[in-house]
């Protein structure tokens, strides 16, 4: 091992703590602001230490919402975000794992063609097809619905590739063995392949849940009703263009509530998160 001199080591600690401070400062500020009085903040007199309005602000945020722009309880927005995130994450995993199963364990005409059709969607992010997709969703009467929020995002080339890759490494003997036991394609998938894929599915779920929860452009376009708003869209509507009306403590509380679930997932399921990230992105 290359030994580090004492000073080098000390320097490393200092730099890392500076990095952590830079990363954490905006969030600390939000936390502090969410406990202070709006009038004080609006005057530019905000203190860097927590104030005494914590319970009041969070109660208002969760159950009432802002008094001006959108009177929608943030708890409801969080519920919408949760439903959308779960539909996207579970939907992507479900349709990807069965596509990969078909592509790896069956031989059929257009097999590779279908694989490529799925693969190429990597190059069609929602940003490049927003308005035509909007039109289709509108024609299908899916605006302001959970199906509209999730369905157009549910295809996943990366998840399909990942499962395909994983199935390729599953020894052929397993299939032969379960065939001898009289298992058909459904039994083999359910009893053998799914249990083996558990870790991959979990890692993927962590990443896709964060991805789903953090969707912004798409929900912004297709939700018009306040009660269908996701939290990411809701927070934007809270910042009014006339600054004087923005209720900063509520906005900051909403910001913290919006990051709570995905950050919690990253911190608590760090191993799965890192694994999922590295495997899906490369």
């Amino acid at each position, binding site marked *: 091992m*290359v030994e580090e001199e004492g000073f*080098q*080591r000390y320097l490393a*600690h200092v*730099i*890392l703590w500076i990095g952590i401070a*830079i*990363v*954490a400062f*905006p*969030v600390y*500020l*939000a936390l502090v602001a969410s406990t202070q009085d709006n009038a004080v903040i609006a005057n530019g007199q*905000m203190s*860097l230490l927590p104030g005494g309005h914590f319970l009041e602000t969070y109660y208002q945020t969760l159950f009432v919402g802002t008094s001006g722009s959108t009177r929608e309880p943030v708890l409801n927005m969080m519920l919408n975000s949760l439903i959308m995130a779960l539909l996207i994450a579970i939907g992507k995993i*479900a349709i990807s794992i*069965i*596509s990969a199963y*078909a592509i790896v364990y*069956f031989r*059929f005409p257009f097999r590779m063609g*279908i694989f490529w*059709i*799925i693969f190429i969607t990597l190059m*069609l992010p929602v*940003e*490049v*097809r*927003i*308005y*035509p*997709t909007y*039109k*289709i*969703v509108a024609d299908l009467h899916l605006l302001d619905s959970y199906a509209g929020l999730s*369905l*157009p995002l549910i*295809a996943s080339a990366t998840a399909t*590739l990942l499962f395909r*890759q994983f199935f*390729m490494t599953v020894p*052929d003997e397993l*299939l032969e063995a379960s065939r001898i036991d009289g298992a058909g394609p459904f039994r*083999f998938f359910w009893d053998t392949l799914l249990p083996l894929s558990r870790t991959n599915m979990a890692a993927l779920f962590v990443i896709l849940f964060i991805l789903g929860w*953090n969707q*912004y*452009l798409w929900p912004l376009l297709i939700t018009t009703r306040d009660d269908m708003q996701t939290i*990411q*869209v809701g*927070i*934007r509507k809270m910042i009014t263009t006339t600054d004087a009306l923005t209720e*900063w403590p509520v906005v*900051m509380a909403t*910001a913290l509530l919006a*990051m709570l679930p995905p950050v919690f*997932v990253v911190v608590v399921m760090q191993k799965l998160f*890192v694994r999922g*990230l*590295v495997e899906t*992105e490369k």
Partner: protein
Amino acid sequence: MRGLPVSEIMQKHAIFQSKLLPYALVAPQLAIVLIFFYWPALQAVIQSFLLQDAFGLSTSFVWFENYLELFKEPAYFAAIVRTFVFSFAIALSSLSFALLLAVMADKPLRGSMLYRTLLIWPYAVAPPVVGVLWVFMLHPSLGVLSRGLRGMGIDWNPLLNGDQAALLIILAAAWKQISYNFLFFLAGLQSIPKSVIEAAAIDGARPMRRFWTVIFPLLSPTIFFLLVVNIVYAFFDTFGIIDTMTRGGPGKATETLVYKVYTDGLLGGNLGSSAAQSVILMAIVIILTAIQFRFVERKVTY
């Protein structure tokens, strides 16, 4: 890591025989992909070659006229340049800071797992939330940091000053991406065999020299991979940051290509031009994805 799917010759030998089942299995994904991905993309491509008259009564096929018009429009050209400037500024600032942190965290320090945890969580913060946090921190009248800037005699007002608004977007976007870059750099550093670094140390190379002559070159595939990912991020994922912070303004100082497609579409108006903008974005994604995959393949043989 995966290479291009075609390059894999590996195939299963043990398979199931069924004529219909495999189609039923791919059907859900295929349906979604065709309805919500290919159909709209195709619509955009077709639309981009058509021109509607002022009343929307008739459309005619105009070849590349929409594209030519677009490139003649100074605002579009400016948006292209701006998007590239943003991308490189975001990528370079975020990458260099993340690399510094990763090199430090790679040292055998006490509490290195804690450091990692404390540095990776911003990955999970959504772009619009990042925008809200930064706009609050650097708001001209009530931002905590703005007080300090004014104290230093800087006339800080990103609501009016376009360059300052652009800087704000770049900083906020780079901030969010630090954690992602940090994780991949750390993984890259940890995959460099310690023996290589030891050998350099035995040869008497000081830490700085060791870094630039040994570690940095070995890290170049990771750097290149991250550069592409960061550019894609800056192109597409900054939408939420821009929308909550500046909404493209002041003027058009923070209007990127994606943001322009969005606002032009909201205003309605020229369908053909809007479609042409989408198709150009598609082309950019295709190029970036192709670069990424070419590189990934090379990295496998590295």
